[in-house]
C-alpha cells in the first residue's frame, strides 16, 4: 500500500482515529507521518487511539442517588459524643451508634456513594440466620410470581414447597432467639 499523502513511498504507519463514532484510517510513510506530527515525534504522542472504553459500561446498571440534605441542628452521638460536624470534617464516624444518630443525614450520603441502601452480601453467622431466611424467602416469592406468570406450574409448586420449608426454619430460628 502506498502512502496516502505522498503516493510515493510504502505506507508503514497506520493510524486509526475514532472521533464521535466516525472511524477514519490513515496510511502514511514514515516521513509523512513525522512531518504531520511535527519534527520531534516523542514516543506515544496523541495518536487518536481507537478507544472503546465506553464498552466497559455495557451490562452495568447506571447508578443513581440524591444529594445529601443540609444538616439541621447540632446532634451528638450518645455513645461516642461525636457531632455530625465532626464527621463532615474527617469523614469517619465514631461508633456504630452514629449511623442511628445521624440516620437522616447519612442515608442520602450513603445512597449517593453506593446508589442504594440495601445490603446484599455476607451476613454475620450468629444473628444472620433469620436475615438469611427472610432474604431467601423474598427471593423465592419473586421467582414464584415469575413462574406462575409463565404458567410453569410444576416449577411453581416446587418453589412453593421450598418457601414453606424455609418459613418453618425461620420460625424455629425465631423461637430459639
Amino acid at each position, binding site marked *: 500500500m502506498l502512502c496516502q499523502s505522498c503516493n510515493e513511498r510504502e505506507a508503514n*504507519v*497506520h*493510524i*486509526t482515529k475514532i472521533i464521535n463514532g466516525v472511524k477514519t484510517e490513515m496510511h502514511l510513510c514514515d516521513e509523512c*507521518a513525522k512531518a504531520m506530527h511535527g519534527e520531534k*515525534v*516523542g*514516543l*506515544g504522542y*496523541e*495518536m487518536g*487511539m*481507537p*478507544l*472503546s*472504553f*465506553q*464498552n*466497559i*459500561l455495557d*451490562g*452495568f446498571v447506571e*447508578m443513581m442517588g440524591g444529594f445529601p440534605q443540609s444538616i439541621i441542628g447540632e446532634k451528638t452521638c450518645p455513645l461516642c459524643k461525636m457531632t455530625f460536624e465532626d464527621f463532615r470534617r474527617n*469523614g*469517619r*464516624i*465514631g461508633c*456504630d451508634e452514629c*449511623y442511628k444518630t445521624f440516620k437522616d443525614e*447519612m442515608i442520602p*450520603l*450513603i445512597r449517593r*456513594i*453506593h*446508589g*442504594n*441502601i*440495601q*445490603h*446484599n*452480601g*455476607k*451476613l*454475620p*453467622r*450468629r*444473628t*444472620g440466620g433469620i*436475615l438469611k431466611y427472610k432474604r431467601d424467602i423474598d427471593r423465592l416469592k419473586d421467582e414464584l410470581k415469575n413462574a406462575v406468570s409463565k404458567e410453569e406450574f410444576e416449577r411453581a409448586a416446587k418453589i412453593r414447597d421450598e418457601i414453606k420449608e424455609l418459613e418453618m426454619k425461620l420460625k424455629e430460628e425465631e423461637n430459639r432467639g
Partner: protein
Amino acid sequence: MDSLNRVSMVEKHLISMNLLKNYDNAAVILNKEENVSIMINEEDHIRLQVIYPGLKLKEAYEYASRLDDLIEERVNFAFDSKLGYLTSCPTNLGTGIRASVMMHLPGLTLTKSINDLISTVNQVGMTIRGIYGEGSNIMGNIYQISNQVSLGLSEEEIINNLVAVIKKIIDQEKRAREVILQTQPKELEDDMYRSLGILKYARLISASECLNLLSRVRMGVEMGIIKDVDIKKLNELLVNVQPASLQLIEGREIEARERDFIRAKILRESLK
C-alpha cells in the same frame, strides 16, 4: 520493630499508611508467606488483607471469608440489616470489601488514554489510582483498580464486575501497545533500550526515575522486544529499589543522595 522495617512493610503493601500513622495503638498479624495480614486498629477495628498473584480474586475472597468466619466466632461485628457491616467510613459499608488489582499500564499511559480510563471506570462504581512516590508523580505506570461500591451487591458480584472491567483494561492496554508498535516501532525500541542502558550504567538514580525506567524495560520484556532480562528480576527490583526496602537490605539508615548511589549499584549488579 524499628521504623525502617515498618515503612518497608508499607512499600510491600503488607500494611497501610493509616496503620503506620497509628502505630502506637495498632498491630498487625502476618503469615509466613506475607500474603495475608490482619490489621488491628487501622481505620476500622479489624481489616483483613489477602494478596494473591494474578487475577485470583475469587480465591483471595474465599480465603478472607474463611478468616472472617473464624474471627466472627469470637467477635461480634457491628451489623445492620440494611447497611450491612458498619464501617467507620461510609464508603466501605455493606460488604466492607475492597477488591483491587494492581496493573502495569505503560501503553495506556503513553497513548494518554489514562484519563479516559479513569472517568469511565468511575462511572461503573470503580476507582483507579496510580501509585504515588516521593513526589506526586505516578511511579512506574502502576495503577490500582478497585471497587468503589461496597453496598447493595454481593461479594461475588463485586468481584465479577471488577474482573470484567480488568479484562477490558487488559485488552485496551494490549491494543495501545500494538498501536505504538505499529506507528513508532523504532522509537519504542530505542526508548526501551535507552531505559535499560541507564539502569545498567547510571551511578546516581532516584526511586521515581528508576521505577519509570523499570516500567519501560518491563514493557520491552513483556512485548518480546527485550529478550535477555528476567521479569522476576524486574519484580524483585521494583520492591528493592524503594527507599525503606533499600535501607533494610543495606542494614542501616541512609541519606537520600547516598541512597541514589546505592540504588544505581544494586541495579548494575542485578542487570549485569
